[in-house]
């Protein structure tokens, strides 16, 4: 069943049609990658669905309910969560606090001002458990601002995951991370979402990651969807490789074309 579908969704910034009448569908339980060159509209699309931006036109349906007019708060309560490309964490609070806040919020406990947070052991146990799943439990007491970049990217995902969402958007979960750290991060994330049966949409630029971890790939270009299929189908799609080759995709095509030119 379609967990999320958009119909003719559009958003412009001045002259720039960032998202141009997009029909985007996410099916329950799948792991989907959203790729495209810079400016293709991937982050804008995620911002529209998560509620950061209001669309100019079109509709968004989540779990068969129209959420187009809903605030980001309502969408989060409905089960949509996201991580951020530029890490957004509570830097002065500990890693454990960061995750615990998601749990408190999910449980509707954040308006409790008359009870001590430390007494709610259920929340803290769950938060500790999440940190352990993400391999961050040794950093539990350390402020989020003080851990390494790769760990911050993981924590950013963990904070979103702790909301126990039905649909999770990961905006470039490995950007800025060294190549050898990427796969371990994605291994952790992928194992967790599969175990939790969470539907995930990943925005990624690294094609190795994309082809290795996704079941389905949606390619965007200049605000519209260019292609949509399994990794094999996309790999064989000439239009996709031509459009994406302008920016670096993998090392090989660039070398091949150089060879052609040299010959």
């Amino acid at each position, binding site marked *: 069943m379609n967990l999320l579908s958009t119909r003719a969704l559009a958003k412009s910034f001045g002259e720039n049609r960032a998202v141009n009448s997009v029909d985007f569908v996410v099916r329950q339980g799948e792991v989907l990658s959203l790729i495209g060159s810079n400016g293709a509209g991937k982050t804008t699309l995620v911002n529209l669905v998560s509620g950061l931006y209001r669309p100019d036109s079109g509709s968004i349906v989540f779990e068969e309910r129209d959420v187009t007019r809903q605030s980001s*708060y309502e969408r989060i309560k409905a089960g949509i969560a996201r991580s951020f490309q530029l890490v*957004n964490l*509570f830097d*002065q609070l500990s890693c454990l606090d960061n995750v*615990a806040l998601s749990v*408190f919020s999910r449980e509707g406990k*954040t308006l409790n*001002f008359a009870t*001590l947070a430390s007494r709610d052991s259920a929340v803290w146990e769950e938060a500790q458990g999440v940190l352990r799943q993400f391999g961050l439990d040794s950093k539990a007491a350390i402020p989020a601002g003080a851990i390494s970049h790769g760990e911050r990217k993981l924590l950013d995902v963990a904070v979103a995951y702790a909301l126990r969402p039905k649909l999770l958007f990961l905006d470039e979960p490995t950007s800025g991370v060294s190549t050898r750290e990427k796969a371990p991060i994605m291994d952790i994330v992928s194992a967790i979402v599969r175990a939790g049966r969470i539907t995930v949409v990943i925005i990624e630029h690294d094609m190795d990651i994309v082809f290795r971890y996704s079941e389905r790939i949606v390619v965007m270009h200049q605000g519209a969807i260019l292609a949509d299929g399994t990794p094999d189908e996309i790999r064989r799609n000439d239009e996709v490789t031509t459009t994406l080759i302008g920016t670096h995709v993998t090392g090989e095509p660039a070398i091949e074309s150089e060879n052609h030119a040299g010959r």
Partner: protein
Amino acid sequence: MQKHRSLLRTLAWAVPVAIALTAAPHVVGPFQTLTLLYGLVFGIAVLGFNLLLGYTGLLSFGHSAYFGAGAYTVAFMVKYFKIASMELFLAGSVLVSVIISLLFGVVCVRYTKIFFGILTLALSQVLWSLAFKFFWVTGGTDGLRIPTPSLLGAPPGADKMEFLTFQYYYYVLAIFTVCVIVMWVIVHSPFGKALQAIRDNETRAEFIGIRIRRYRLIAFVVSGAFAGVAGALWAPLNGLATPDVLVWTFSGEIVFMAVLGGFNSFIGPIVGAVAFTYLKTYAVGFTVYWQLLLGTVLVVLVLALPKGIMGMVELLVAKVRRPR
């Protein structure tokens, strides 16, 4: 084990301080006791102020509005309703300061940082100008007199000084203690954590499902209520309510007290309030250019010692521990 250690550490300084505060009127002279009394009253105000600054990341330059509202409520209750009960004064002041901080807060919390700061400043100046202009109601610059109130039904004795430095002192100390406990629970509650999240990253807070405007407004109103309580306690102490209690320079003193004590810690604001009250009492005798001194120290503090007195204390404590 950790929890016990930190509890012991807290008790190590909290118990002597509590004993000192309780014993003060019997040990030191009336002038000292009065200064301490003013310090405790301002301590309540700055404690409330810091819920906004230290915990929610909102810097208000207009807190004199809620303090002044509390003070003038007492004055009006005396003048127009002939009330003399401190409990009624407190109830009235809390009510009025909550209403005003709600009204002002609804406008101010839609903004952050600069806009928030100037809006709070501007709104408190409006209140000040109203107190000034409607002098037939507020007594203008002459102010309104506030006689000594009855505490828990018991009328004050004939000796005002005796009353202030004993009965009133312990009354204020009790309320101060209650305020400290209430604020401590608030900042350590899930709500307090949510405020800190909003302070650190409002986007992320929004995206874990926290409605930041609502939470900021609640913090604003609680903060205003604390200032109102302080204003009510201050009124009988000062004996007179004038527009000076609403003017922006007084808001500046509240800000200064928080920065002086260290706004990153829980007790920093209280330490700052008491320290400032002592400093002011002695410095005002030296110079009429009080603003100049205050402003310079504030600039120096922000440049060199942004964590204030408590920051310095933390550094010293860390240095002492390190050789282990």
